[in-house]
C-alpha cells in the first residue's frame, strides 16, 4: 500500500515550529501536556520537529481549512496530533494534542492508546 502524504509539507511545518512560529490550543492540546507552559511548548516543539511521514495518519477537511492528523508515541502512549498552517501569518496551529482514545492507523502502522 502506498504511504499517504500530508497536505501540509512536513518540512515546512517543522521549520515553522523550530523557528517558534506556532500556537497551541489551550483546552484541546496544552491542557493535556501539563507542567509549566514553557516546558509544554518545548515538548510540543520536540514532538513536531521529530515527526516523520511514518506518523502521518490522514488529512481532515475542516469547514474553513485543511488539517493533518498524526499518531505519535509520547510519554509511552499513543497521542493524537492535529495541526494546520495559517499561511497568512505564517504559523502552525496545533488544534489538538491528546492521548488517543482508539487506535489510529498511520503510514508506519497502528498507533495504540
Amino acid at each position, binding site marked *: 500500500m502506498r504511504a499517504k502524504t500530508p497536505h501540509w509539507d512536513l518540512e515546512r511545518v517543522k521549520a515553522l515550529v523550530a523557528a517558534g512560529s*506556532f500556537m497551541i*490550543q489551550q483546552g484541546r492540546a496544552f491542557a493535556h501536556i501539563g507542567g*509549566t507552559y*514553557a516546558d509544554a511548548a518545548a515538548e510540543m516543539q520536540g514532538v513536531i520537529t521529530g515527526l516523520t511521514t511514518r506518523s502521518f495518519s490522514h488529512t481532515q477537511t475542516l*469547514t474553513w481549512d485543511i488539517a493533518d492528523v498524526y499518531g505519535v508515541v509520547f510519554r509511552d502512549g499513543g497521542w493524537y496530533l492535529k495541526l494546520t498552517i495559517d499561511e497568512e501569518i505564517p504559523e502552525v496551529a496545533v488544534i489538538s494534542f491528546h492521548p488517543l482514545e482508539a487506535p489510529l492507523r498511520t503510514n508506519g502502522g497502528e498507533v495504540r492508546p
Partner: protein
Amino acid sequence: MSNATKRRCGQCGERVVVKLARPGRTAAYRSLELAVPASLEIPTCENCGAEWIDLQTARALDEALEPVYQEIQRARLDRALDKILSVEDNQTRIERALAISPGYLSKLKHGKRAPSGEIVSLLTLVSDDPEHALERLETLSKRDAGGRKRTAS
C-alpha cells in the same frame, strides 16, 4: 487591527484571534487550577473563545503563575507538616512510612528543598488523619515485605 492581520482560530476558522486581557480566567498550571492575572494578554478567538498559546504567552503565563503556584504549594506543605508533626513528632517514622530519604522532611520544613507536587499531595493526604495514615502505610509495607520474603524462600 483589521481582520487581515489577525490570526486565524484553528478551532472555528474565523480570523479573529486577538490578544485579550480580562478578569475571571483560570488556567491549569502543573497540578492546580490558578487564576490568570486580569492584565495578562492571551491570544483569544473573539468568535468561539478558544485560547491559543504561543511561546511569548507561554513565558508570560509561567512568569505570572509560577510564584503563585510555589506560594500555594508552600502553604499546603506547611499546613500538612504542622498537622502531621503535631500528632507524630518522630520524623524518622514519618520518613520511613512515606519511603522518603532520612532528613528530607526537615529540609522541606526549613525551606531547604523545593517540594515536588507529589510530595505535597502525599503529605496533604496523610495530614488528613496522620496516625491512621502512618499506621496503614506501615502495615502495608510490612505486608509487602512479608510477601517478598515468602516469594524468595
